[in-house]
């Protein structure tokens, strides 16, 4: 390439184009509608309504099953003859379906799934300065005087709610964290600055955009004017002082909310002034590209056991955990990479010292063999 073309690179326009392409997405619902149309084109044994073990079979697998059926029929038919010749005699046996090949196939499948991104970092809630409950007089619990505060300290945990059936696999998204210089440039193209690491733990790259002024826009209008309105699926929670656009991730069972490492809903946030105008926004970088891979999940039973398996110190409060929510959170993968990984968020409340607390426990939804 000549010097002339290098000089014409126009990095500012390239950044705007990057942001435009990353943010341009079809209308909400289009992805699901089109997928439903495609699903209707599948043969019945490939549709979601078919049993899992039937759906999971590839075309070659069906051919392989046919071959296995022929071999089994031959073995079953020949077994009495073979037993008679070896002196065992008696009633025919049944061929075992559990073979070393099946075990190899299992580990090969898991390795194939793990190979896409390799083993994943373990998602976890951050150990924060969450308050420890002050001990009241033994045996006396005061009624709660305020909303439950998050509590991440030790507790004696039991499981009280039903466990959801997880699909066989769940999607994991990976992203590359831009360099500080690129992040600053992309943030400036939105009229903001790159956000520093937050007190709520690890998050995907965020941009802070200051608002205010004589005629402050609404939260939606503010974000649209800066090209930062979420292009991803989300659910809006509008309060008097803050609007949160909770990011949602598509899974086989539906949309799942994102949380941060405190267990709080996460996505884009706009702080409002008393008149309802946008004061400040913190938004995920719109041009962040995600790549997708599916990972095998742990069983619901295993997840429940893991939720209550933490060490309980003497005197720690007893907490009964309810049914978990399947959520997604950003996890630091190191070396400039991050992941959005699925996890089960359990919670249970207890009262102590005149206050109400909520104990949160996070269990990865991915099979342990595919975690670091």
């Amino acid at each position: 390439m000549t010097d002339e073309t290098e000089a014409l690179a126009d990095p500012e326009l390239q950044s705007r184009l990057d942001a435009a392409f990353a943010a341009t997405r079809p209308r909400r619902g289009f992805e699901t509608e089109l997928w439903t149309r495609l699903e209707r084109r599948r043969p019945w044994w490939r549709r979601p309504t078919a049993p899992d073990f039937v759906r999971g079979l590839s075309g070659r697998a069906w051919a392989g099953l046919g071959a296995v059926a022929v071999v089994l029929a031959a073995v079953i038919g020949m077994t009495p003859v073979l037993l008679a010749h070896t002196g065992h005699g008696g009633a025919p046996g049944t061929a075992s379906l559990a073979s070393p090949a099946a075990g190899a196939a299992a580990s090969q499948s898991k390795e194939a799934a793990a190979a896409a991104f390799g083993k994943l970092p373990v998602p976890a809630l951050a150990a924060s300065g969450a308050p420890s409950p002050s001990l009241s007089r033994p045996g006396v619990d005061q009624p709660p005087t305020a909303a439950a505060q998050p509590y991440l300290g030790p507790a004696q945990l039991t499981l009280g709610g039903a466990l959801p059936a997880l699909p066989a696999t769940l999607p994991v998204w990976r992203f590359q964290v831009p360099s500080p210089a690129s992040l600053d440039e992309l943030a400036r193209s939105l009229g903001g600055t790159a956000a520093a690491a937050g007190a709520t733990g690890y998050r995907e790259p965020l941009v802070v955009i200051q608002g205010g002024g004589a005629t402050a826009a609404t939260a939606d209008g503010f974000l649209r004017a800066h090209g930062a309105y979420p292009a991803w699926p989300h659910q809006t929670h509008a309060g008097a002082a803050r609007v949160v656009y909770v990011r949602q991730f598509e899974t086989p069972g539906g949309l799942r909310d994102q949380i941060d490492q405190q267990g709080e809903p996460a996505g884009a946030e706009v702080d409002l002034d008393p008149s309802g105008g946008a004061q400040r926004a913190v938004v995920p970088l719109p041009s962040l590209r995600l790549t997708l891979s599916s990972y095998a999940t742990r069983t619901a039973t295993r997840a429940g056991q893991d939720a209550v398996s933490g060490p309980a110190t003497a005197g720690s409060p007893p907490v009964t955990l309810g049914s978990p929510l399947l959520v997604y959170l950003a996890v630091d993968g190191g070396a400039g990479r991050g992941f959005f990984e699925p996890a089960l968020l359990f919670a249970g409340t207890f009262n102590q010292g005149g206050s109400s607390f909520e104990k949160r426990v996070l269990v990865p939804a991915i099979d342990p063999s595919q975690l670091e």
Partner: protein
Amino acid sequence: MSHAAWLRYWPVPEGKPAFEELYREYLGRIYAFLRSQLGSPEDAEDVTAQVFVKAFKAYGRYQPRHATPAAWLFQIARNAALDHHRRRGRQERLERTIARQPGVTSDPSLMAEDHILYRELMEAVAALPVRQREVIGLRHSGLSFLQVGEQMRCSEDAAKMLYHRALKALRAQLPEKTR
């Protein structure tokens, strides 16, 4: 291990992801590329659907060793965009010879969630000459210059030259306030 559990672990064909993974990963990118080529969100949505229906039908024959999933999908998308322009050209010529029908207002509930700033930029790209808008669309859909060159039947260096000329033309076309 039970029979059903053994079947659950039957390995996926090597090197070829499940179609749904391709769909989830590339739907947004293909749509954005087609927006940049066609201009209107309705056309981009229609042609995106055509692309994935075609890809879905052809996936059994797709061989990863011949082309990456990105190259394969973007080739289908590129051809679909060119076909759309050819059909629209025929339709516009037809409309000039018959009485005009009353215009149909776009249903706001069906409109893509647009960013005002980006809409102008994407429309400016769609207004470029065909090879310039293609090179910008492919490059900003995540393809390398080598892959762009393969798509457009030119060398990597030729693709870079074309891209930089396209940027210059786009810059000149943008309204004063957004330059």
